[in-house]
């Protein structure tokens, strides 16, 4: 499969100390490993198992996902902005692939 569609929503500016909401969504089947194909064979599990958010290279928020997370995972969470910098979001796939997106935040 081609690189998955990803959408992120990060405010371009924030005032010092402001708590901002970060939203993200990624196209992924999140194959649970519980399903069977038409001939009755188990479809192997393939999910995104970890999500990481860093700010200026420092880990701020992480999340571990199990097969119960819906296809095309959507995630919204918060971050307190103390300085201007770069938010990087990354998604780790069972197959070893890592998908990344980043955005700049300026101090207002």
């Amino acid at each position: 499969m081609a690189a998955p569609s990803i959408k992120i929503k990060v405010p371009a500016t924030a005032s010092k100390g402001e708590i901002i909401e970060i939203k993200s969504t990624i196209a992924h089947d999140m194959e649970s490993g519980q399903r069977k194909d038409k001939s009755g064979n188990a479809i192997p599990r393939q999910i995104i198992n970890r999500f990481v958010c860093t700010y200026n290279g420092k880990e701020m928020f992480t999340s571990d996902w199990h097969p119960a997370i819906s296809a095309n995972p959507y995630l919204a969470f918060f971050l307190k902005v103390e300085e201007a910098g770069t938010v990087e979001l990354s998604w780790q796939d069972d197959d070893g692939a890592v998908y990344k997106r980043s955005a700049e935040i300026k101090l207002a």
Partner: protein
Amino acid sequence: MKNATPLLSRRGLLIGAGIAAAAIAARPRLTQAAVTEADRLIETLTGGVTPQAGKVSIKLPQIAENGNTVPFTVSVDSPMTDKDFVKAVHVVAEGNPAPGVASFNFTPAAGKAEVAMRMRLAKTQNVRAIAVMSDGSVYQAEQEVKVTIGGCGG
């Protein structure tokens, strides 16, 4: 006419009904086993600390139209300072084949311990949110979600 061809015989339907009846009879036992598994998972995640009520809340639909995509929001009442913050939130679905849904690991830099996501629920069941605080205390909230099983299109 092409579309008039029956795809299932009457016998096929009766056998199907028998299987469905057997599945219903087996259900209570399965549910109980899954609750135990959820309890064991929570014990591992909390290091055996008994969860208290309060501080954490989970927002879920009372009725999920389809168990494939059930939106949830978990929020924890915490100042999120270096001395007093939420370390982790674990979401556990008691009635799923594997009860673990997701774990969210916070730092004080999050500013606010709140997340929103979507999960799969195999059937009507309780969903629990467990919050582990920086002082080691554990809080829990739970809510039942009725999962609509489609009569036809579902």
